[in-house]
């Protein structure tokens, strides 16, 4: 399982970002290998649709779980459609702490928005 986090830097010790779509980097944690991979978020400078483009990045990396600050309703719809569960990072500032909290079921799952925005034939 791949767990994605929103990071402020390339280093896997960097603090978590307080934005989702426009965060600086995405950090991908592989729960089987227990390893990190970082990519810079190419969506952060998008003039519009940053959230959607960020979801595409998560999809490309095979993300199953996202630990994030508050996610907007549109991105939330897309994440839900793409079967990515979203958990609130809350006041946690470091990636390994957030992962530990998630593994111990201490993170709150973000409210799933309505599916009204999605169009799947």
């Amino acid at each position, binding site marked *: 399982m791949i767990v994605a986090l929103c990071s402020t830097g390339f280093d896997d010790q960097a603090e978590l970002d307080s934005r989702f779509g426009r965060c600086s980097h995405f950090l991908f944690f592989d729960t089987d290998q227990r390893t990190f991979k970082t990519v810079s978020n190419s969506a952060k400078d998008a003039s519009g*649709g940053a959230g959607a483009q960020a979801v595409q990045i998560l999809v490309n990396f095979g993300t199953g779980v996202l630990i994030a600050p508050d996610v907007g309703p*549109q991105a939330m719809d897309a994440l839900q459609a793409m079967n990515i569960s979203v958990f609130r990072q809350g006041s946690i500032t470091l990636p390994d702490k957030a992962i530990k909290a998630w593994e111990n079921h201490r993170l709150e799952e973000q409210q799933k928005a309505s599916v009204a*925005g999605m169009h799947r034939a």
Partner: protein
Amino acid sequence: MKAAILSGKGGTGKTTVSTHLAALFPDALYVDMDVEEPNGDLFLNPEWNDRIPVSVIYPEIDNDKCTHCRNCAAFCRFNALIAGKALTISMKEICHGCGGCALVCPSDAIRYRERIIGYVSRGITRFGSPIISGKMDVGEFSGVPLIDRIRTMDRTEALQIIDSPPGTSCTTVAAVEGCDLAVIVTEPTPFALSDMKRTVEMLRTMKLPFAVVINKAGMGDRGVYDYCRDESIDILGEIPFSLELAGAYATGVMLDSVSPQLQKEYRKIMDGMKRKAGMPGVAV
């Protein structure tokens, strides 16, 4: 003359100035292009004759046909499509309706549907002047299609007051485009000044002549005045801060008894606008 009335942010008196001009110059067509929050009609109380729905297209993906090649997602420059290994979805609020994704789909999996995002209404205000007003539905993403629709409408009036969206968004640019001049309504406060600077930058990039009207003059500080002097920006007029006006605004009766001094100030503003646009002025 098409004059865009705008402001760095909402609530600086853009609608106050636009509707006063509309009420005092009933030859003018008042166009409410602040489609997210059109409120000129609260003061102008029009009778509507026409209500035209404005719709946009968005793609619907047939995931039975989709081969997950990702062509569409790579093509869409608005990132309105997300292509996964097993599922492709479209985000209709982000889609700009360009119609391109179906062309790049090799599997004929994309069909377009239409949805209404708002209405454009046309009528006559209680001052007998023509009004056009666009209103975007709540929760929509972009008001640009509404503004585009208004721009294609037959507008023959020699004088047009365009109440434009605040800020420097795409909708603001769309509303201001094609105007002869812009009037920035601002307040003499540091916050209003910093927002106004962005608007000035936008208008300079668009190479549009512009000037400033100061609302709530008498409160705040001299920052806006100093800035206008340093940047050689004309101040066309000042609307004094008055509790009376604020109360009349809140109850929607603002235009019922405009004092002679205020009428004079607005005529001065209109005179300045016309001269800026290279037309003969009006008697003040």
